[in-house]
């Protein structure tokens, strides 16, 4: 059983650090954004050609390493997986498609809202409905196959990969690309961002806190769930930090890293919520689970990296100018794939 205090601590830490990372140099309202970080990391690895989104974000590695440390210390590290691997990879891609059309993962969605971006409300509504659809799918017998323990320490692959990427971050070999301008060039110093990410990864593994999981538990159990406290702590501290640092600018239009196509923001986050519930967590939670030995979450992470490359290379990602046609088609295909998956994995007996 997860302690309520730990969940509140995790939520509060995420809210405060999510804003502080922006103060320290990350893009506005993107102190923590797994999809944005994935896109810049994919760019740094040469997987797409957008020169303004290339930076090997140490936060991503930090989340995984922090979760691994926590799992090892708490004797919770366990190599497990084997549950519909291809579905996991595809789900990772779909999560990023949804996030890229909204411009941000569920954490960034809340950070955008906390900074006064009311356009994020469409995403919040979409996420809640997506999570509800995921719960309803479960209630109607939709479930991916059970994961099993894996011998051979396959669960260590993602943590080792995170350490490897961190080595590349410090070594900066020739093939690692770095943006000279744009979102990829906006970054908090690693001396601040890396420890912050490790700390958050640690706390989140301990507490199991994540935005989508909180919403799921709240829809299932109401305010009695410990996640409610974490969610409220996150929202309150993020809004407080945004106000105190002069980053609260209420309004619908002209917000940083946002567009006004609310229907597509709604649908993007609906897709994220639905998929996240079916695979057991939002993009951030997948990183944390990958850090504690869950190879299914590791495959989702691989899918997210692939998706991050594709949304940039194929022009799926939305910008402040709006949602491109490819993005809209991507969302529709994402919903089609999700419904097909729900039909295919439904236990009818």
């Amino acid at each position, binding site marked *: 059983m997860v302690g309520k205090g730990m969940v509140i601590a995790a939520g509060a830490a995420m809210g405060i650090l999510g804003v502080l990372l922006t103060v320290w140099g990350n*893009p*506005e*309202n*993107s102190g923590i*954004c797994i999809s*944005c970080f994935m*896109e810049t990391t994919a760019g740094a690895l040469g997987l797409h050609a957008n*020169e*303004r*989104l290339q930076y090997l974000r140490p936060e991503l590695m930090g989340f995984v390493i922090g979760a691994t440390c926590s799992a090892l210390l708490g004797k919770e590290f*366990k*190599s497990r997986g084997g549950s519909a691997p291809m579905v996991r990879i595809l789900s990772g891609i779909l999560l990023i498609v949804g996030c890229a059309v909204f*411009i*941000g993962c569920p954490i*960034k969605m809340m950070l955008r809202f906390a900074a006064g971006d009311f356009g994020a409300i469409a995403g919040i509504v979409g996420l809640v409905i997506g999570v509800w659809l995921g719960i309803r799918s479960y209630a109607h017998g939709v479930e991916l196959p059970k994961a099993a323990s894996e*011998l*051979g*320490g396959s*669960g260590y692959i993602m943590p080792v990969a995170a350490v490897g990427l961190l*080595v*590349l971050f410090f*070594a*900066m*070999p*020739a*093939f*690692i*690309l*770095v943006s*000279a*301008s*744009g*979102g990829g060039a*906006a970054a908090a110093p690693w001396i601040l961002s890396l420890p912050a990410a490790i700390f958050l990864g640690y706390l989140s593994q301990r507490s199991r806190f994540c935005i989508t999981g909180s919403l799921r538990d709240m829809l299932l159990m109401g305010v009695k769930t410990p996640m409610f406290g974490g969610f409220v702590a996150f929202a309150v501290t993020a809004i407080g930090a945004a106000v105190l640092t002069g980053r609260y*600018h209420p309004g619908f*239009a*002209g*917000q*940083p*890293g*946002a*567009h*006004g196509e609310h229907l597509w923001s709604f649908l993007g986050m609906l897709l994220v919520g639905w998929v996240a519930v079916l695979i057991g967590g939002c993009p951030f939670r997948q990183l944390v689970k990958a850090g504690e030995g869950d190879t299914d979450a590791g495959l989702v992470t691989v899918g997210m990296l692939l998706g991050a490359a594709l949304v940039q290379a194929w022009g799926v990602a939305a*910008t*402040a*100018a709006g949602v491109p046609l490819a993005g809209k088609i991507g969302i529709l295909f994402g919903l089609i794939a999700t419904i097909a998956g729900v039909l295919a994995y439904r236990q009818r007996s």
Partner: protein
Amino acid sequence: MELTLKTDGFDKILSAVLLVLLVVAVAMLLADSPVPGGASNSKVLERTLKTQARLLFIQNTYQPVELLLKENRSQEALLKLEELAVRFPGEAHGLLLKASVLAKLGADAQAASSYAAAVRQNGEYVDQKNPLSRRDEISKLTENGLVKYVPLSKSQPGDVALKQVVRDLYYLKSRLAGGCE
């Protein structure tokens, strides 16, 4: 704990080889990073050449326009830009200069549209530190434009052109505010 602690000679040999390979690989990786905190020389060179080529193109192509602007011959500068737009349709710097001239002439609505089109193509115009940055003039037009056109658009809800101007101004505001792109 999953990994077995019982080791034999085979384990020891493989572990030793693994360690040696790891050290060699990391050393080779470090040796391949000649520029501290950046990409390799070839990539830096490639990027520098690209930037310089763009700056040279801008200088060569738009020098007549810049000269006319220096002499405050804004109308002639606009005509020259129209002429260049035939050769290079939709070119970002041409759109930016056009916006700049229109702003000087007080045609804020058209200027906003032209600035937005330029920034959509090249985000460097709103970057803080960039040789091509025009952040200050775009920021000024955006702030003033929003004060002027938002109430106007609200009072004339049927005016599609006004709505587009406000949309362009909000786009510029969003880009100036930063965030992920």
